[in-house]
């Protein structure tokens, strides 16, 4: 069973590494220009920045705190006073959503890059060392893919539930790298045969240094794409786990815990559910639009560079 993950990358596992860069410009500038030529990338990047600013600045500009109770407004629909309405004990949903969004964003922005980093290191080590090590690592990856990550996280939840939300971050990253690692491994196996890697090896440069200096920079584009897409994926995973009570625990709030509370009366008071859900969807959408546009810009085989 070969697991290429078209969701995160479209490069083939046999991985011919493609040259980028047009005459007269650096590689980075070319990529940046291509990324932001795509409308999706601009929309995604701008949305992400706005959402992040809103989450962290928004509460400062709003009169209600996320634990404040308005005794004159129990379960009120959205109004000028309470923009997203209130819940049945008079807490402001707008204030709560922003605080939850902060936590979800922090989790996403740590887990996405962390998982990509693990994938990069494991994949590069397996591909570079080859032989027995490669077989062991691939076997472990296959083993971790037998059970869905969500199942593993649910089964492990007694461990991180008793710790802080930071433990959840660690576990989300620990079970989110496997598929990308296989792709990176394929790339590394072809990079290993490149002349400059061979030259470095024959000059006596150590394996760790070669991986760090020559392999990882060459697969960096893939890692950046996956780190971006991983932000959204982590926010989705976190909210789903929290929704079932396996993720972020009170007194901490995240979008998932807010949605869990709101879902019980979602039919009679839709504002408790619909507004946080909408913000969650827009956040994840922004990260996936940006990630997808990055992929189009970096990987010429994926086709579109404009839309």
């Amino acid at each position, binding site marked *: *069973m*070969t*697991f*290429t*993950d*078209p*969701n995160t990358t*479209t490069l083939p596992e046999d991985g011919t590494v493609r040259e980028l860069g047009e005459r007269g410009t650096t590689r980075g500038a070319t990529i940046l220009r291509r990324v932001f030529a795509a409308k999706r990338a601009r929309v995604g990047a701008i949305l992400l920045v706005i959402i992040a600013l809103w989450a962290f600045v928004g509460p400062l500009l709003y009169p209600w705190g996320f634990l404040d109770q308005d005794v004159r407004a129990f379960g009120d629909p959205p109004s000028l006073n309470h923009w997203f309405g209130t819940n049945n004990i008079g807490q402001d949903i707008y204030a709560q959503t922003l605080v939850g969004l902060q936590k979800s964003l922090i989790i996403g922005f740590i887990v996405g890059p962390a998982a990509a980093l693990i994938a990069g290191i494991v994949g590069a080590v397996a591909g570079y060392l080859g032989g027995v090590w490669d077989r062991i690592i691939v076997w472990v990856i*296959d*083993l971790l*893919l*037998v*059970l*869905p*990550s*969500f*199942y*593993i996280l*649910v*089964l*492990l*939840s*007694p*461990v991180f539930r008793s710790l802080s939300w930071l433990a959840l971050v660690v576990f989300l990253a620990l079970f989110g790298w496997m*598929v990308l690692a296989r792709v990176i491994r394929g790339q590394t196996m072809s990079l290993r045969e490149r002349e400059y890697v061979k030259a470095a090896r024959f000059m006596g440069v150590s394996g760790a240094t070669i991986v760090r200096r020559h392999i990882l920079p060459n697969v960096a584009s893939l890692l950046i794409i996956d780190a971006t897409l991983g932000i*959204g994926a982590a926010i*989705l995973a976190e*909210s*789903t786990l929290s*929704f*079932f*009570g*396996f993720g972020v625990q009170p007194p901490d709030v995240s979008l998932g815990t807010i*949605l869990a509370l709101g*879902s019980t009366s*979602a*039919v009679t008071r*839709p504002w408790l*559910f*619909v507004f946080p*859900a909408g913000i*969650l*969807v*827009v956040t*994840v*959408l922004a990260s*996936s*639009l940006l990630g*997808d546009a990055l992929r189009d810009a970096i990987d010429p*085989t*994926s*086709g*579109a560079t404009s*839309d």
Partner: protein
Amino acid sequence: MIGFIGRRLVNYVFLSAIATALGYLLVSATFQPAARFLGRNPPVPQASIDAALDKLGVNPSVPILERLWEWATHLVTTGSLGISTRGTQVTADIFERAGTSLRLLVIGTVLGAVIGVALGVWGAVRQYKASDQVITYASFTVLATPVFVIGILLMIGATLLNRAVGTNVINFTGEYSAGIQGNFFVILQDRLVHLLLPTITLTIGAVASYSRYQRSAMLDVLSADYIRTARSKGRTRGSALIRHGVRVALIPMSTFFAYSFGLVLTGASITESIFSWHGMGEYLIMSTTNSDVNAAAGTILFTSILVLIAGTLSDVIYAALDPRVRV
């Protein structure tokens, strides 16, 4: 080809066995089955706690490897997965719940794959036209929406519809109405109505991801020489695209099918819990809340067997579609 499938099968069986054993160790180490006896008033004597835990084979004072050995030999010799914390046989629970899960999964997966592939081909053929853009942005939005949000939004919609009509047109709690009486068709109709919302929830997600992959696989194929050859030897555009394009573009999809199976299971377990279907996904979530080691281990075994079947199936499809594998 038989050899290829056989080798794969042996590999999967081995992986599943190891995964189950590790899973058993994992839940034995993390779950605390004794916790529900503690803090009671009057306090439960240690002897009866031990007796209860020993009966389930989950007493933490027994070394963990010994417990695994007991569990595995019990499974191999008697086919029993032990007793759940509620006193039921885990094997019987699983057989009952697996039927529920499969009824939900099969329809959702098949519908999702068929509609998704069709939409993906459509989008690739009409690249950058309005319909392609609509499909692309719609699937991005669906993929950005957690499964439970889709499910609850559908529930809100159904409730509003029921209210507007005045009767319960769409029932969405459970697999069938409790205590329903009547002939075969009444019961069948009741079950189909209950299937509606969970199936839509599962199908929407599957359609969104399959259409994305199929579109990109199809785009790779569209510019290939053999499509031009097929056209130049006189095939119509439609025939060339279907016979030579879609068939080739389905090859990577068979790998994706195996990979995405875990996501399908995840989606199913969330859907089950939301719509109160007593299936395997709900069993997993319940076993964690109840610290039920045997039920969780049984679910792990069941899931890894499903993943094994999905992997083998995708290899068979791959071999059937790609003649190069058959040598």
